[in-house]
């Protein structure tokens, strides 16, 4: 078995390149196909293609959050007991395509540069 494996490994450098190429074109075709039929669910069958970034942005603790305070007061006024600090932030969903690692890096950069203001806000996100 190991001989056979080795044999394949040595002999088929060319066919591996071929495989990578085929894989690449399959992805491009898939991308066109799923976009044409507009079936995002299909993309889930093909990992590393389409995903959703779920981003949560909240004000930093040190920043005055009068909105959170107003919501807290309203909740208490409604009779809810045990309500502690409330923080009002922002939630974004971004549909994005690409390799997971690259997407993660991109979203992190976008959060830092545009989607949040690091002076006053914190962010966290997950990819699905």
């Amino acid at each position, binding site marked *: 078995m190991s001989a056979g494996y080795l044999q394949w490994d040595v002999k088929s450098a060319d066919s591996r390149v071929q495989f990578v190429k085929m894989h690449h074109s399959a992805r491009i075709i898939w991308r066109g196909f799923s976009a044409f039929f507009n079936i995002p669910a299909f993309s889930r069958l093909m990992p590393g293609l389409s995903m959703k970034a779920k981003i949560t942005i909240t004000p930093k603790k040190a920043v005055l959050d009068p909105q959170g305070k107003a919501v807290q007061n309203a909740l208490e006024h409604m009779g809810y007991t045990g309500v502690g600090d409330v923080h009002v932030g922002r939630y974004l969903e971004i549909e994005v395509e690409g390799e997971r690692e690259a997407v993660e890096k991109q979203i992190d950069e976008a959060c830092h540069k545009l*989607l949040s203001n690091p002076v006053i806000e914190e962010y966290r996100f997950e990819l699905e």
Partner: protein
Amino acid sequence: MNVAVIQFPGSNCDQDAVHALRIMGHSARLLWHKDESVGDADAVIVPGGFSYGDYLRCGAIARFSPVMQAVKTFAAEGGLVLGICNGFQVLCEAGLLPGALVRNRSLQFRCEHVYLKTASGDSPFTGGVDAGRLLRIPVAHGEGCYFADEETIAALKANNQILWQYASSEGELTDDANPNGSVDNIAGVCNEARNVAGLMPHPERACEEIIGGADGRAIFESMAAWLTKNKQPKAA
């Protein structure tokens, strides 16, 4: 002086600024947000309003417009840049000024006259204001609460970068006089090089007695005087 006033989609104090400068005898023109140069301007004003609908955060989208890249270059070369209200927010978002502006403490849009104390006369924007003189100028904003972390505030104080503070009619920095909850009653600051400044109140709305006061002129007159004194004649 020759001033370029930027016009973003959603700016609404651009014409006021041009009008105020012209009645004071200065030359002023509008600069479209897609322009990639500030031309031969001596100074740039980033006016108030709701640039790009204030989507995401106030000023967050405007900072990426082509004209802001030109303003950054202009500022880096020492050009005078003044951000008013939304313009102040844009300059903070663009990183040309420290800190950020968040929702007013009261959650209300505040539209009223305030008294401004000039905290430092050492800048092109405040050099012409007599020490101790209070400027009565209107504010009109929902997100004008100035915030910066303690370290930044300490640096602003050490470098005299706080230019204007909200004060009572007696000149006291009271909590009642603070319309939005800004740290240390800060109404406006400048950068370390002192050529870029921003403030929440609207000096351009206070340049004619007929509309309730002309104290705002002091800021534009300071800029003009500074330019006359310091401007290098442009090479022919």
